[in-house]
């Protein structure tokens, strides 16, 4: 089985030597993939997969591919990528030089659930990002969950913005994680 990790430009910089990752080129993009054995789903497997994607992202822009995308052989990978070439390239253009930052907002243990305040925080943070999207809640306590597309290297500054909002909102609890590859901005 061939596992696909990400879509990147073709041609591109030399690939890092990680997991036997190879590029399957199609036009102006390439699928970055590797032959893999069956791997049981576990936190370790997920983190290992993520480590590969992030190693690739160190010196190229990419669209991370959904986990578990496995195809029988490189010919199938080529066909899948070629079929979607223009859409993939357009999506890749949308995330150039950017990474994703995540936000979750919950109410404190004994407090009310000010959803409106959470929405306002999101609006303001969105104004500081290249793009923003609201995601499904991760856990039932989430008042809001969102992702922001920020410039690479901009996550520290974004974290400060979140800290500022936290200080301004004692009635909320803000959790910010990142930087991540742009999973939430990969599909258009």
């Amino acid at each position, binding site marked *: 089985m061939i596992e696909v990790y990400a879509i990147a430009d073709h041609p591109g910089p030399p690939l890092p030597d990680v997991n036997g990752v190879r590029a399957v080129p199609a036009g102006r993009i390439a699928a970055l993939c590797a032959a893999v054995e069956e791997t*049981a789903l576990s936190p370790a497997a997920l983190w290992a997969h993520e480590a590969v994607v992030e190693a690739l992202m160190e010196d190229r822009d990419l669209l991370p591919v959904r986990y*578990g995308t496995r195809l029988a052989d490189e010919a199938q990978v080529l066909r899948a990528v070629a079929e979607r070439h223009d859409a993939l390239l357009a999506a890749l253009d949308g995330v150039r030089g950017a990474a994703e930052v995540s936000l979750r907002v919950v109410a404190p243990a004994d407090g009310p659930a000010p959803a409106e305040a959470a929405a306002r925080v999101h609006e303001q943070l969105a104004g500081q990002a290249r793009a923003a999207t609201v995601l499904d809640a991760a856990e039932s306590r989430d008042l809001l969950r969102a992702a922001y597309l920020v410039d690479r290297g901009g996550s520290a500054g974004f974290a400060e913005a979140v800290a500022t909002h936290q200080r301004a909102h004692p009635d909320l609890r803000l959790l910010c994680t990142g930087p*991540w590859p742009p999973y939430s901005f990969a599909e258009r």
Partner: protein
Amino acid sequence: MSTAVADQEVALIDLVDRLLGGGVVIAGDITLAVADVDLVYVQLRALISSVATAEDKHLMPRMGSAL
């Protein structure tokens, strides 16, 4: 819960939702192998797509899952 453990857990929560719910879908089936004891492959013949993009696609991504 210790801080270190909580740290790991919240990071994992964000990771799982991204890997399983985000990323670009290029193949019809998503295959997840779970259970070392028995490889259970149940292909979820359902169309689960990113909320905003269901209508955009000509080919609806299908999320197969081995649970």
